[in-house]
């Protein structure tokens, strides 16, 4: 039986993370940074500089990442949207990637921007699912290659929360992601809570999904918790990860031969609810999982 490298354990950075680091920093050896939270994007038709850095935030982030592995977790490129790649935004991310030394960069397999005749960079208002077919594949393929070339580090895509399934698709999401990995090297950020949300809305069989994805493609796992909004369960990042997620993580994560990080996501507005102690316990459990991934590598498709 072979061993995998032990994945890092960490957090998606938000303004309360420094408080967690003050109390439980030894449990965090990895941080994922959302570049778009470190500047104001005034839009493509702005007067003067489009991106205005938030210097105070950047300084705190730089102190927080010292001695830790760092990745970027973008939300602005909206790669599956049928619009041209935002080259200005990519250039801004490239500068940050170099400055903070991103080991990899992640984006989303969902649509945050929408094509709109009257507005460049029109937002969809939430992450919407996309059609898995040849056309979307070609849209993504060319953008993935461009982002890879610009950033010089691996790119991975995160599965989204799907509240409305798109029927008559040519491929399943795992088939789509596996093909993208085979043809471009673009890996998977497996968000187990998004998978859980999609399953709660009866839009996926999670066990089938997890057994179909290429174990070699998964570089990172997200863990998170959610709650209900007007009767619908959502990915609000408001709770600790629930037991179904841990069950999946323990079952499948040891099979992911390239797994580099296990990340807990929480929104800063829930920091008081979760408490540093709660987050620390979550991190401890993630370390146990990381140990298991390192010592009990399972042959692919076992």
């Amino acid at each position, binding site marked *: 039986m072979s061993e995998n490298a032990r994945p890092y354990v960490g957090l998606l950075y938000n303004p309360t993370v420094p408080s967690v680091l003050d109390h439980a920093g030894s449990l965090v050896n990895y941080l994922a940074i959302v570049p778009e939270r470190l500047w*104001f994007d005034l839009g493509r038709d702005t007067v003067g500089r489009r991106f205005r850095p938030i210097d105070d935030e950047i300084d705190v982030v730089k102190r927080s990442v010292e001695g830790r592995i760092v990745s970027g977790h973008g939300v602005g490129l909206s790669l599956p949207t049928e619009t041209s790649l935002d080259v200005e935004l990519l250039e801004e991310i490239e500068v940050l990637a170099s400055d903070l030394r991103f080991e990899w960069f992640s984006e989303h397999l969902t649509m945050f921007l929408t094509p709109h005749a009257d507005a460049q960079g029109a*937002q969809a208002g939430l992450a919407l699912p*996309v059609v898995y077919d040849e056309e979307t594949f070609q849209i993504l393929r060319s953008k993935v290659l461009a982002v890879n070339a610009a950033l010089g580090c691996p790119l991975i895509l995160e599965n989204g929360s799907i509240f409305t399934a*798109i029927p008559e698709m040519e491929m399943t999401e795992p088939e789509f992601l596996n093909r993208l990995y085979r043809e471009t090297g673009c890996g998977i950020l497996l968000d187990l809570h998004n998978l859980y949300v999609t399953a709660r809305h009866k839009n996926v069989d999670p066990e089938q999904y997890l057994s179909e994805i290429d174990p070699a493609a998964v570089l990172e796992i997200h863990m998170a918790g959610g709650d209900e909004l007007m009767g619908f369960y959502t990915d609000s990042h408001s709770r600790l990860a629930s037991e179904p997620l841990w069950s999946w993580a323990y079952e499948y994560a040891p099979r992911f031969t390239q797994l580099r990080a296990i990340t807990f996501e929480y929104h800063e507005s829930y920091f008081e609810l979760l408490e540093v102690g709660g987050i620390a316990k979550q991190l401890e459990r993630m370390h146990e999982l990381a140990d298991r991934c390192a010592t009990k590598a399972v042959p692919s498709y076992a």
Partner: protein
Amino acid sequence: MSSPIAARRRPFRVMREQFQRAFSDLTASSELVKQVRKHPDLLDERYDLTDLERRRLIAIVNQQGMECNCILYRANRLGPIVTNLPDSCNALQKDLRSLLSEYWARPFQISDNFWVEAYNFCDFVKGKIKTGIVSTTVLDTLEREQAVVGQLLAQIYPEKYGGEDNKL
């Protein structure tokens, strides 16, 4: 708007744009969702879709999860307004819901950050006050809260927000 036959002859690259635009427009408007549920042909009046795209969208709008999409859209757009303009929202009372629905009919752009959304909403409501649709009793509260947001914006975008209006 081109006919369904013309739509099927469209160049390959153009197709997905219409579907994505339709999907996001529906997410932004629960009223449009209701209309399409009753009259699916409305999709062809507004968008250039293939038969498959039309079938997909009709299936999507008839799923219960479409309510969730619409709720999340409104919640995400409501956040900056309620956070930055709490007293104005309170003062607008029963007018708030319809004003928000009308305000959100315009495209939501990447430049509409946390403060810009709130600032622009204030301008929108002030326009409604001028035309008598909204009571002038809200104006003082609105201008006070807009000035606070304006000052914050002036720090990042002085070229646009650095004028006298945004000095406290």
